[in-house]
């Protein structure tokens, strides 16, 4: 026997207030991301338009950044940004990968949790602390020990063209190499933690199968784990790269803040973020300098966006193949 209350529920579907609200709020949440992203890009572009109009493509390709004569070219900052970020990835990726594999496969069970937490704590250190550590501890060490040694070891490498001397430079302590090392330490926990999670997601059945067939740990890693999670491994790296590209405070301390083209891997340089941070407080409203700084921000946005897009593209090809 049906009650009247139950009858009214059967067959018809009344719009439910809570349901509709939830539905709309999800759309709003989704839209916020797009709106914020688009408006940041737009405002950066509008703010930097004056610089793009004044200097044209030269704004990207010119090597001169001169606040006295108001000539602004972004190439030194772009170069510094890309070199430090790429070097940092080259240093942090193998180490992060090693940490992750150690934690998931080799580490004694009792050590796993504390080590994992230690890595996550590394990610929680504020970037200014990394900057000060880099400036007061790493930079003098680089100047007195590492740089003289590396200069000697790599002295045989011929210079690139007539201006880029790879490893020969006066030991100032701060510069591209120091900045890359600090950035590497900063992105290491991100890469290690993400890679660990990805590796943990490899089905145990696959690994057990490999071990059962007599595979060594190395063979299991290269034959089973990596192919199973290859796409996500790239994701971990690009997450770190994204952070390295935009890092500001730590870089200001250790990069040497020289807006000229670097002539060696130790040379003081500047990144886009450090140039903006250093000059923004003194940039006058409506000035070409402010426009140039906002234009730099726009370029950084596009570079980061490009890196991510490239990563996606690589991943897609990876999956198709």
């Amino acid at each position, binding site marked *: 026997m049906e009650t009247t209350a139950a009858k009214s529920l059967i067959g018809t579907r009344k719009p439910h207030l809570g349901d509709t609200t939830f539905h709309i709020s999800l759309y709003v949440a989704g839209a916020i991301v797009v709106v914020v992203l688009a408006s940041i890009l737009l405002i950066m572009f509008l703010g930097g338009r004056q610089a793009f109009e004044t200097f044209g493509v030269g704004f990207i390709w010119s090597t001169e950044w001169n606040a006295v004569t108001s000539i602004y070219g972004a190439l030194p900052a772009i170069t510094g940004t890309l070199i430090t970020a790429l070097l940092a990835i080259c240093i942090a990726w193998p180490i992060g990968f090693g940490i992750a594999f150690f934690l998931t496969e080799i580490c004694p069970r009792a050590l796993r949790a504390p080590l994992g937490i230690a890595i996550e704590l590394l990610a929680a250190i504020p970037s200014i602390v990394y900057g000060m550590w880099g400036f007061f501890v790493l930079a003098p060490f680089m*100047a007195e020990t590492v740089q003289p040694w590396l200069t000697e070891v790599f002295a045989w490498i011929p210079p690139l063209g007539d201006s880029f001397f790879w490893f020969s430079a006066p030991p100032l302590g701060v510069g591209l190499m120091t900045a890359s090392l600090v950035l590497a330490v900063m992105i290491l926990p991100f890469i290690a933690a993400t890679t660990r999670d990805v590796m943990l997601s490899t089905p145990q059945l696959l690994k057990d199968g490999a071990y059962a067939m007599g595979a060594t740990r190395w063979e299991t890693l290269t034959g089973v784990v990596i192919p199973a999670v290859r796409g996500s491994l790239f994701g971990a790296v690009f997450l770190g790269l994204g952070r390295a590209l935009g890092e500001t405070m730590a870089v200001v301390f250790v990069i040497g803040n020289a807006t000229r083209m670097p002539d060696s891997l130790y040379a003081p340089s500047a990144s886009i973020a450090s140039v903006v941070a250093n000059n923004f407080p003194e940039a006058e409203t409506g000035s070409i300098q402010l426009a140039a700084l906002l234009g730099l921000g726009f370029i950084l946005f596009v570079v980061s966006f490009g890196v991510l897009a490239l990563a996606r593209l690589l991943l897609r090809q990876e999956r198709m193949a």
Partner: protein
Amino acid sequence: MLNQLTKSVGRVVRAAAIAAVIGGGIAAASAQDITGACATFPGPIYTKWGEQYKATGAGALNYQAVGSGAGVTQIINRTVDFGASDTPVASERLASNNLLQFPAVIGAVVVVVNIPGVDGANLKLNGAVIADIYQGRIRMWNAKEIKDLNPGVTLPAVAIAPAYRADSSGTTNIFTSYLASVSLPFQTNVGAGNSVPWKTGVGAPGNAGVAAAVKNTKGGIGYVEYAYATENGMQAPMLENRAKKFVKPTVAGFNAAASQANWNNAPNMAASMLNMSGDTTWPIVSATYVLVPKNPSDPVRAANVLKFFDWAFKSGGPAADQLHYIALPKAVQDQVRKKWTTISANGQPVWK
């Protein structure tokens, strides 16, 4: 549109600063309080004056050392009661924004060095040599140019590592203005300004950063405010002044420069004190300037700003001495007070 944007950013920053002040347990804003956005060069002395002024029972000074550029921008937007700049603002800009400019306090920039085995405080340098060092023309401490200035001193074959301010700053402006005035190549290749295209060396953030960079690097040379050099126990070499005499940085030498400046004829009271004549004069001295609206919308707050600086002129001398700044000469203070009478709100003079 961008103006609007920067304005609102300024407002947010100010709101945040006020929130921080209240959150920090400092007395909430009262009618007597004034706000200022200023250059970093005079930061320590304004803070000290603010504390002492408050102790006299007057209002509090909420001061943000945000840099000269931001200080000027904020007073143009009228988001603060006074702005400050380490470099005089151009006359047209003062006129178009209805601002009055006056000097508040005088400071000196010194060179600091770290040369292994050499007593930096007794080293002799001149402007031309320093300009060449900062252009990468002199690269070793035992270069002939430096040896010639220091007969009898054994200089090591150590590479010179110049350090400069990474952030754009009034200190850089004073230092580069001096170098540009004594070295034509420096003026053409580098120029003078808050941030300049340095040809060599490394940039470190803030006075403290430059001081640390010099301390950390063998063969380092840098420039900082005198206060930072003395506080950090750094070696500041002698410089050759206009009278071809080598002088050590002393408050007496700074005072000599201040007394030489031509205050009477300087437009907007922006008298240069760089490379003044006189046997004891220190060559790199400059005033830092305060900007107030000529037509304030709130006459009470405007009067409070003037009262604060009046107090600072009368009673702020000891604090200035203590922090190695130089108070304005008495005659200049009176000239400044005379300028204040031109400020009026609704037709009424604010300063009587």
